[in-house]
């Protein structure tokens, strides 16, 4: 059957089982919007800014594991989307972005709303395509979904000129595609897997370090089984939270710049480190030279060979799909008669217990001003740890990561790699659409929330009853913290002046707004808010302006050179 390029685009989405497209129309995509109008299989969510379309689609992907889809027009539509594309790229999120382009004869002539989309997005996509003729469209779409969702996932952009979306072609969606230049490894090298298992069984001070790859690779079940079986301590990165259950005694907390004392020390002093789907980035291991100063053997399992030995040289590299590799490891382990040295392990746990005794996440619970940590703890309690939590970027993000004990994957959605303020609210929308019956909470700050606040309108239109937890400290808190610690208390441009009345603002969008000023009101307000199942509730908590996130490893410092609290400043 002959279909227009626009119809083909939508039929491809349908064939991929896409439920939602997050987007914003404009001239170059009018044919595609027309094709959307005449069908009811793929639902379009009209956001209020293209950045939000990307974040919402991205969060949909993070929460479900299926590629998120966004649709934007040429020129400003694309440039507005770039922040969202880069956010997804840095966190390896599978997405397909469809962008309109000026008609092919106009390309290169500085036509109205023309930008070099393929050029602008090249450094922040896994791959991109410019479709030059309608006959290539269906295959290109198939390739886009294939590349986005296999191997190390990532965003793939398909740029469709307006005339291509108008021209007619026979529609035939291929069942599969093979690309001679793209075939991600699946199975790890058996010899390396055996070497890894031997090394793990010889360890006296082992440590397991789990990153976002374990979640992306749906390997958290295998991670948990392996760690439980071995009796080893385990830490998750910011992106890995939920991969290993935080409520388990073998979990030593998140590691890194704002990681726990015990996680960072165990990371530094272990003798065998098993890194799973993680990338040893600067926020996680601090200064690599300091990290090297302590000898340890490293096993690194990752789907992306370029992540291995990039910042830290490893001893046993294993490239492969995490669940495959971990299953193989488990099989070898089950078959082996050897067990980890019990006495050594006991000694190591004793040491870790002492580090834990520092109680590094303690804070002042008798404060008359609301402590942000207290709000996050209450959020955890009131939702019984059962909410999907999205976050923006700043101190509130770190407190959410520290005080919410995630027990399962894909329920903590945050921008870890790019650190994009504005992510939280649109991400909550994407998660709520993916799981309409779940509780979705967005932990944010008064600065971050204003970067995509217009999405309160989208929440209204599509009845997305997300709960906004605004930790309002009237500061770009994380910036203020760095200025206090690293720039001699010179608070340059970090005070958030002229704030709106968030309660009235929420109300004007048709939502419920609440301001909470006293610690005693935190829990009751939250209970009331979460009881309003079908409403957006914007909770504006007036929190302590001077609170800092601890522990803290200053940028460039060693992982164990932690500031533990105000007394260290």
């Amino acid at each position, binding site marked *: 059957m002959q279909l227009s390029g626009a119809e083909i685009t939508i039929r491809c989405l349908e064939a991929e089982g896409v439920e939602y497209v997050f987007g914003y129309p404009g001239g170059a995509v009018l044919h595609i919007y027309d094709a959307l109008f005449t069908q009811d299989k793929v639902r379009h969510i009209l956001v209020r800014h293209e950045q939000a379309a990307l974040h919402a689609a991205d969060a949909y992907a993070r929460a479900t594991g299926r590629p998120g889809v966004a649709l934007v027009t040429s020129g400003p539509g694309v440039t507005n989307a770039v922040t969202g594309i880069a956010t997804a790229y840095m966190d390896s999120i599978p997405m397909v972005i469809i962008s309109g382009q000026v008609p092919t004869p106009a390309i290169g002539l500085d036509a109205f709303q023309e930008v070099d989309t*393929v*050029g602008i997005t*090249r*450094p922040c996509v*896994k*791959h*991109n395509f*410019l479709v030059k003729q309608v006959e290539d469209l269906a295959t290109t779409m198939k390739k886009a979904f294939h*590349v986005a969702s296999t191997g190390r996932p990532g965003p793939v952009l398909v740029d469709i000129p307006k005339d291509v979306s108008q021209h007619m072609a026979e529609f035939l969606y291929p069942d599969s595609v093979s*690309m*001679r*230049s*793209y075939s991600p490894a699946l199975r790890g090298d058996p010899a390396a897997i055996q070497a890894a298992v031997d090394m793990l069984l010889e360890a006296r001070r082992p440590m397991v370090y789990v990153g976002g790859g374990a979640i992306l690779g749906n390997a958290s079940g295998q991670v948990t089984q392996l760690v439980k079986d071995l009796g080893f301590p385990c830490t998750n990165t910011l992106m890995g939270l939920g991969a290993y259950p935080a409520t388990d005694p073998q979990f030593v907390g998140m590691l890194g710049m704002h990681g726990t004392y015990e996680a960072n020390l165990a990371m530094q002093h272990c003798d065998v480190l098993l890194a799973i789907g993680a990338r040893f980035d600067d926020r996680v291991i601090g200064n*690599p*030279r300091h990290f*090297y100063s302590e000898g340890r053997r490293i096993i690194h399992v990752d789907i*992306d*060979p*370029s992540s291995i*030995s*990039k*910042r*830290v*040289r490893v001893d046993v590299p294993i490239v492969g799909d995490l669940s495959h590799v971990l299953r193989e490891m488990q099989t070898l382990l089950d078959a082996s008669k050897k067990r980890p040295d019990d006495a050594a392990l006991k000694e190591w746990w004793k040491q870790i217990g002492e580090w834990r005794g520092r109680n590094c996440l303690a804070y002042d619970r008798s404060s008359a001003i609301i402590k942000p940590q207290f709000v996050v703890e209450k959020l955890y309690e009131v939702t019984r740890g059962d909410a999907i939590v999205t976050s923006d970027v700043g101190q509130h993000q770190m407190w959410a990561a520290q005080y919410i004990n995630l027990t399962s994957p894909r329920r903590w959605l945050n921008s870890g790699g790019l650190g994009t303020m504005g992510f939280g609210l649109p991400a909550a929308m994407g998660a709520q659409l993916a799981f309409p019956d779940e509780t979705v909470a967005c932990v944010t700050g008064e600065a971050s929330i204003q970067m995509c606040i217009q999405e309160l309108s989208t929440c209204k239109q599509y009845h997305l009853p997300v709960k906004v937890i605004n930790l309002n400290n009237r500061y770009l808190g994380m910036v203020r913290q760095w200025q206090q610690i690293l720039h001699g208390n010179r608070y340059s441009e970090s005070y958030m002046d002229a704030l709106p009345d968030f309660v009235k603002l929420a109300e004007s969008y048709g939502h419920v707004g609440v301001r909470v000023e006293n610690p005693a009101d935190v829990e009751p307000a939250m209970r009331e808010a979460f009881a309003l199942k079908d409403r957006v509730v914007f909770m504006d908590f007036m929190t302590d302006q001077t609170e800092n996130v601890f522990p803290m490893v200053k940028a460039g410092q060693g992982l164990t050179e932690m500031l533990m609290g105000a007394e260290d400043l």
Partner: protein
Amino acid sequence: MEDHQQPMRHILSLLLENESGALSRVAGLFSARGYNIESLTVAPTEDPTLSRMTIVTSGSEEVIEQITKQLNKLIDVVKVFDLNEGRHIERELMLVKVRAEGVVREEIKRTVDIFRGRIIDVTEKTYTVELTGPRDKLDAFLEAMDKRFILETVRTGSSGIGRGEWILRA
């Protein structure tokens, strides 16, 4: 990655899809990640869907390993070989226009002959010389020439190929 080694010159040979964006993806990767490019050549192969690219770069073993991995990760790149890993041949083409008047005309001709170059264009006042060889041979020729006579040089950058049965195919 902590680097203690001296950077070394490497010749990377790539097969990539002969598509419009492929070159900019490779070039973009080098600039975005701060890798060094000494030269880059590219042209289609006997299979018109494939291009062959030679990149001359330098870096420590670790950096070269990263470059190779990152190149392999590009969707348009079909294969990457580090020619330094085996016996290989490197050739570059250079065109040099020299001022050739009066007495030096003969002297220039002799130097060209020594380097097995060819004079491919002659005017009353100039010679245009064609020379192929490994990079150092071309460098040596330029050094042997009196700088005052060199009007223009055009170099293609190195192309490389493995020796004997070492064959790079898709």
